[in-house]
């Protein structure tokens, strides 16, 4: 590939089929600043996302601590609003999305037999936009008036009442969007152009397929979000009235634009998670993925449908009944391809030869709880029911089942699954399993009871509540602190494994069958597949 012009690239032309470990990684801080190596960049993405996960987690704990009992005890209402806002922004844009881009960086070149990403320098820049964006986002808290308490959805015209913290947030969103778009261009180009001979599209591992589809979604909708926040910015400072009724605009227009981004965003998060699970379940079932072709079609259908259902987030804005009916039917339709995926995963396990190491446990946790989140999504798709549940804790429970039990569990599965390959070290299996069970139990403690709060009518984004909601909020808060502490165990497991883990085998999981397991030694050399493998 002529696109790979790398400062560190070795002289070409040697004819051996070795894996290029004749020169290893550079040393020192500058290695990380200037690196164009997909493995280094993948590692940085993953660590960045983990740090943001902890930051967003502390915000979540602040929210839960305030909600432990009725009355205002810990924070003021306006600070509470900033916590819900930045918890959402940080978890979506800072934690979950970068985590899966990290997986993409690490795994796509390995899985398709490419030496690196198509645009290694752009890859470096995609990553290095993130830390400034994160700092800019957090700097909102230091500005006069504090950070913006508008919710992660940043609805107009509340945004026009905020201080300069709103502007730094908007610029941070711009940077994050640029990073995502560049990352996506890189991923699409790599997948379409750099596959090893014989690696046809329909032979690609499912994870690669899911990222190809996700990257297209990102390119389609990140500019839409950028447009929405830019209009907010000009409404705030340059006298425009896109969302200001007094100037001829419409606040609801903002919601349409935001959710045209926001609904595909849900799948930008979920689809790579599907990809990880589609690698893990077959590996531990020792059986090929059931219905590979239908998986590809189902994932593509979900992606396409995700563009035409956005207004189901807006059933209560007062749209015509015909609009509500259309969005209801379109939304219900998503259950079909999603169901196909769930059935395929279960069929993959059927008559397999199953073992339950940590990655498999997290994948099963994903399967079980993500499906539950899908079902509550179906409940919410029905307009008459949604009118009762919109903007209540039921919605909070629903999307955390999809985002946490879905995406986060899948990310944990992926980290445990590929950790031995990436580092050459094995994590402590027993601790991994403890981490899984703690995470599973505390997760349900936090969010299962929130369904009941929503059904009883407790609105979301409120810092204080009537005593009738006390019991479930207390269970939820206790669960949240347990969940948070369990993630410190995860950090300990990783650090312990890096420091003193046992050496891992080349094919640590005997059911794993993608190129990184079959063709590459453990630990992996710094550069891999300089000469492409041939896939039969």
């Amino acid at each position: 590939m002529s696109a790979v012009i790398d400062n560190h690239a070795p002289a070409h032309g040697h004819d051996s089929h070795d894996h290029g470990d004749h020169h290893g990684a550079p040393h020192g801080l500058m290695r990380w600043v200037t690196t164009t190596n997909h493995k280094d960049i993948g590692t940085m993405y993953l660590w960045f996302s983990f740090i943001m996960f902890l930051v967003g987690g502390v915000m979540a704990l602040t929210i839960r601590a305030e909600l432990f009992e009725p009355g205002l005890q810990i924070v003021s209402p306006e600070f509470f609003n900033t916590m819900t806002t930045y918890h959402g922004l940080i978890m979506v844009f800072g934690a979950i999305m970068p985590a899966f881009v990290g997986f993409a960086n690490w795994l796509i070149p390995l899985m398709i037999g490419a030496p690196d990403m198509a645009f290694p320098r752009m890859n470096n820049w995609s990553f290095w936009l993130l830390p400034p964006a994160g700092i800019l986002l957090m700097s909102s808290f230091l500005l006069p008036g504090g950070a913006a308490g508008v919710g992660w959805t940043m609805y107009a015209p509340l945004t026009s009442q905020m201080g300069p913290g709103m502007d730094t947030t908007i610029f941070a969103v711009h940077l994050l969007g640029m990073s995502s778009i560049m990352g996506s261009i890189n991923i699409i180009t790599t997948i379409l152009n750099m596959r090893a001979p014989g690696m046809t599209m329909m032979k690609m591992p499912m994870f690669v397929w899911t990222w190809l589809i996700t990257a297209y979604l990102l390119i389609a909708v990140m500019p839409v979000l950028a447009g929405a926040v830019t209009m907010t910015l000009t409404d705030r400072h340059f006298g425009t009235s896109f969302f200001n009724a007094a100037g001829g605009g419409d606040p609801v227009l903002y919601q349409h634009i935001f959710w045209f981004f926001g609904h595909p965003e849900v799948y930008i998060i979920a689809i790579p998670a599907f990809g990880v699970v589609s690698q893990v379940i077959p590996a531990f079932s020792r059986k090929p993925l059931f219905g590979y072709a239908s998986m590809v079609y189902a994932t593509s259908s979900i992606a396409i449908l995700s563009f035409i259902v956005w207004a189901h987030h807006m059933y209560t804005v007062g749209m015509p009944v015909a609009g509500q009916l259309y969005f209801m039917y379109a939304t219900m339709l998503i259950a079909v391809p999603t169901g196909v995926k769930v059935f395929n995963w279960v069929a993959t396990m059927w008559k397999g030869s199953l073992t339950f190491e940590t990655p498999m446990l997290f994948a099963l946790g994903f399967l079980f709880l993500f499906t539950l989140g899908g079902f509550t999504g179906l409940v919410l798709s029905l307009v008459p029911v949604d009118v009762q549940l919109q903007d209540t804790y039921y919605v909070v429970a629903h999307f955390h089942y999809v985002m946490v039990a879905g995406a986060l569990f899948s990310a944990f599965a992926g980290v445990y699954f590929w950790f031995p390959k990436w580092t050459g070290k094995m994590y402590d299996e027993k601790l991994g399993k403890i981490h899984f069970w703690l995470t599973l139990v505390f997760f349900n403690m936090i969010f299962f009871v929130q369904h009941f709060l929503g059904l009883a009518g407790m609105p979301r984004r409120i810092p204080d509540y009537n005593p009738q909601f006390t019991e479930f909020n207390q269970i939820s808060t206790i669960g949240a602190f347990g969940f948070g502490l369990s993630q410190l165990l995860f950090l300990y497991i990783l650090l312990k494994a890096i420091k003193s883990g046992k050496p891992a085998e080349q094919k640590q999981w005997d059911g794993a069958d993608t190129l990184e397991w079959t063709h590459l030694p453990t630990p992996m050399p710094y550069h891999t597949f300089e000469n492409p493998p041939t896939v039969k």
Partner: protein
Amino acid sequence: MIKKFGASIGSALLALHAGSAAAALQLNLTPGVTVGSHVAYDLHNLMMWIIVVIFVAVFAVMFWSVYAHRKSMGHKAANFHENTTVELLWTIVPIIILIFMAWPATKGLLMVRDTSNPDMTIKVTGYQWKWGYDYIKGEGEGISFLSQLSTPQDQIYGKEPKGEHYLLETDNHLVVPVGKKIRVLTTAADVIHSWFVPAFAVKQDAIPGFVRDTWFRAEKEGEYRGQCAELCGKDHGFMPIVVDVVSAEKYSAWVAEKKKEMAAAQDDPNKKWELAEMKARGEKVYAANCVACHQANGQGIKGSFPALDGSKMVTGPAEAHIDRVLNGKPGTAMAAFGKQLSDTDIAAAITYERNSWSNKTGNVVQPSDVKAARK
């Protein structure tokens, strides 16, 4: 703090253990007292049954696999990886189930969205952070009042025990007759709010600059409570809704009394007020409308809401001050109170601000000054 927190956790666990923490924890939607709430309740129950059946079926298969197809049980992996019949089946069957769900949902939706032929129409206006009610058609036409949280601050900050209706009580209740179709128009003055009463299954966004509608016909007399459901800034959690559904006779009596009250509250616009009485009245207006942001001590909240104590605006020329209160400051939470309050109330609040804390202007702003500024 931490000690208190720990103690609370302990008592919560104890309460849970005792199983008698509350009379009854609500686990399902309220059946409510309107057609809309019955539709939502029945539909939700139907959905739950369908979901439970599918969930049990799918995960029975998965857990059977987990149990029987384990490597540790010596199970050898089969090698099948597709089956067109099965795959078609599990695409088509869900579609049929979805149609089965969509049918009652569609029927219910068409019924609950029909706002035609109301007996009464009430306009609901969302303000930061209270509700305004205007009876614009039907019995009680012309009645108009504001309604806001009546829970004392001391309860919120834990200085006194919390009442049963903590955060769900208001100074003025919306009163409607039982069995009458009430059309509700929603709008807002500042940001988007949402008027949400679970027992009526009514949740309608109130959007500044636009009017939306919804309706309810309450089948049973009683007090029904709800809250704002759309994040609307600082006190989003503190703008409840209380609706009294009463018999036709009681309603007529309420209308008569309310009208008398409103007539009595009419101020003589030409009256010349003295400083002391204006200030006394202004203190009440301030406490109801200004205190949430500018605080009782006039110090505001640093960075978010400006201090009035010693402010240039408040101690400078009265005209600018009147203009700011009447028309608000676009792009901030400072509302245009000209739409909400009478000339006398605005004059009183301004007089209070100009003569309280360290502000000693000695000005008495008269209702006629405000009226002149309105033009």
